[in-house]
């Protein structure tokens, strides 16, 4: 019991189970196969972007720009495919690379010019969206390519393709964080940049690459977003950064850096999306939904900060009971 309480997965998982239970109990439609499949589609983009948010949060940074980056990237993607005739596979690779480039821009300003990540990416949040409006006179581009929707709506063995992308990317991210020197260095740099420097780690380079990865995830998110609606629009991705950061934070990633777990991030992303879905099914207005999300973020962080105290109280209660449970 106590070992379970101390496990880092338990709190986010409990939160996920609770919101799932509430959603299932309040709306019979929640557990429909159609709705569940819809959920998988909804969660994929948030969860993939949240990989990037987690990497950046691990180095004690923050990335506010992926929503805007996605808007810009969907526009570039749509324009290049529809009007410039760039072949679809090449355009996809270019979009992901361009996303990495946008991340490199954030990373360069933050890691090498030492402008705080919050400021850099806040500026990028504004600038990237502005740039998105420079394409196609600021109008959305529809019907980009006939084959595009298949990337998002296709299935394999009866399961939607985005689920495979998600599992694959999370498996890679998990492996990188656990088994590569780079992953370990991310934790070290986030935990104590001074000590990391004095241990011979190339601190700035590691910070830089965390942003590059976040940008590449935004690039993948942009391709999926464009495929989902077969279009590009400067208005896509508004508020996505908040959902992605919330996913990481609900998953227990510390904004102070050095603490976080990628599996928990996907749990956090699921939690956020299920809450939104449940509220939607209950016809709760969007305004109230955003308030609820805010409340969840604060609660998640609070519970995480006080986990030790709460655990202590529970252990105390268990200890006062006679016999073993």
């Amino acid at each position: 019991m106590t070992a379970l309480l101390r496990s880092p997965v338990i709190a986010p998982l409990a939160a996920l189970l609770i919101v799932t239970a509430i959603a299932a109990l309040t709306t019979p439609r929640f557990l429909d196969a159609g709705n569940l499949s819809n959920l998988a589609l909804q969660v994929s983009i948030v969860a993939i972007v949240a990989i990037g948010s987690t990497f950046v949060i691990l180095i004690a940074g923050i990335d506010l720009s992926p929503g805007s980056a996605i808007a810009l990237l969907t526009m570039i993607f749509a324009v290049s495919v529809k009007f410039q005739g760039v072949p679809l596979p090449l355009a996809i690779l270019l979009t992901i690379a361009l996303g990495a480039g946008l991340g490199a821009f954030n990373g360069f300003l933050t890691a090498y010019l030492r402008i705080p990540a919050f400021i850099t990416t806040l500026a990028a949040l504004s600038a990237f969206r502005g740039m998105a409006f420079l394409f196609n006179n600021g109008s959305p581009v529809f019907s980009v390519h006939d084959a595009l929707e298949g990337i998002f709506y296709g299935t394999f063995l009866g399961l939607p393709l985005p689920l495979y992308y998600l599992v694959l990317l999370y498996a890679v991210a998990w492996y990188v964080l656990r088994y590569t020197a780079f992953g370990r260095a991310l934790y070290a740099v986030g935990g104590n940049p001074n000590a990391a420097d004095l241990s011979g780690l190339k601190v700035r380079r590691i910070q830089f690459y965390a942003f590059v990865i976040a940008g590449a995830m935004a690039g993948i998110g942009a391709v999926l977003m464009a495929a989902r609606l077969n279009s590009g629009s400067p208005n896509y991705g508004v508020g996505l950064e908040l959902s992605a950061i919330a996913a990481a934070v609900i998953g227990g990633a510390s904004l102070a850096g050095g603490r976080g777990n990628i599996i928990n991030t996907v749990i956090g992303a699921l939690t956020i999306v299920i809450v939104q879905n449940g509220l939607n099914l209950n016809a709760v207005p969007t305004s109230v939904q955003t308030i609820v999300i805010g409340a969840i973020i604060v609660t998640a962080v609070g519970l995480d900060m006080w986990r030790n105290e709460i655990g202590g109280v529970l252990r105390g209660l268990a200890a006062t009971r006679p016999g073993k449970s």
Partner: protein
Amino acid sequence: MPDQTKSAVPVWEVRNLTKRFAGIVANDSVSLVLERGKIHGLLGENGCGKSTLIKMLMGVFRPSGGEILRDGKPVTIPGPMAARAAGVAAVFQEFSLVPTLTVAENIWLGNLPGRRTRVDWQAMRDSATEVMSRLSVSIDPEAIVADLSVADQQLVEIAKAIATDASMLILDEPTTALGLEEIHELHRVLRGLAAQNKAVLYISHRLDEVEELVDCVTVLKDGRVVSTAAETEVSVEAFVAAMIGEVSNHYPKTVNTREDVLLEAHGLRTANRVRDVSFTVRAGEVFGLGGVLGSGRTEIARALFGVDPLLAGTISVAGEALRLRSPADAVAAGIALVPENRKSDGLFFNFQGQQNMSVAALSRLGSPLAMRLREETRLTHDLYDRLEVSASAKDRLVGLLSGGNQQKIVIGRWLFAGARVFLLDEPTQGIDVGARTAVYNLINELTAAGHAVVLISSDDNELLAMSDRIGIVSHGRLVDIRAAADVKKSDLVRASSSQEAAA
């Protein structure tokens, strides 16, 4: 000597104070008496219960048993505010000052003079000046705290503590960051406070300093008083004997110097005040750097480790000239730095000891794309045994470990990395006697293996005993290099006073 049998009721007394935490007795029936006008030392190794005791006096912990008496009457201290109101003031190793505010604002923070929303700035300045004069120090109440030296900040901290007319002043490791002159100044201030009829409870790891300052000493071990104020003779030897329970060889120095030069520095100059520093360290040799805090010893270590770029000069290891653009280059060349400030520059508090030790040499775990974590566990557990890290410390976040175990882990990082040149900056600062001895044994082990050690220490006895040769640093220059046997403690003191004169 005042009358020993005086019948006056002591201003503060702790009687049979006990504190239990889930299954652990942190304080077991501790009693001690604090008299007005006396400086009372409280000694003991880390984990002996000192912190628990002062936290009960500060109202942070509630005692599980026993009582605290003021002027002979039992008092309860339910919280920090109550402690302050009862006349308990404390100064901790970590500062509680707001660096961007002025001295006067810091002193009165939380208790600003004036009515309702308006602050009476003039009254605040005047009363700050008055508090400073009680300490007989001259620090401008208008100065911004961040602009003050560490020593002056410490004095402001004390001024803040006594501003509300405390009858007991607790100081927990107040001298960690201070140089010799500054310690003397602090002692003068504390004696002055004692003369003003305050009771002072003084905690420090630097036993020579305690010997110099205090009137009596209580020694704790495993949560119990092992030597009461009446019993403890005020001498370093007696302290050590009481703290570790036996008289051991305080400095187990072995001489391992070999012929070949391992580290050579020639004409080093950096923008960070290092001027024309040249010296060599042989394999197996401990080269000590003496001098006051701020003399440039740490800066020399920074230059050797590639933190501050060289403006001039050369560094070579085993005859090979190095170009150090960053610490990464120094690490690659086999140089190790155990930094002065373990907490801010040494440890990763999000890691356990294992990851803390492997971080400087992850390449030992195989390909950077496929680290072998089992290998990491195996290698670091071997190191735990070699460093004599206590078993309970192995699988815990390093923040939960004692200072001694933490320091062993920082040193272990460089054993793991296979370093050949060890720069140890204040390696025994803030760790207990037992762990100190372990660090000394490690230094011997390093030199026996043919490694070179550069030792920086403000503890003169330690520096003299553990070094083979000593370089005296003043104003970023190496002014003298001699065999440690030819250096007397007074030479080090004189070097610091000459620095004062030159400054």
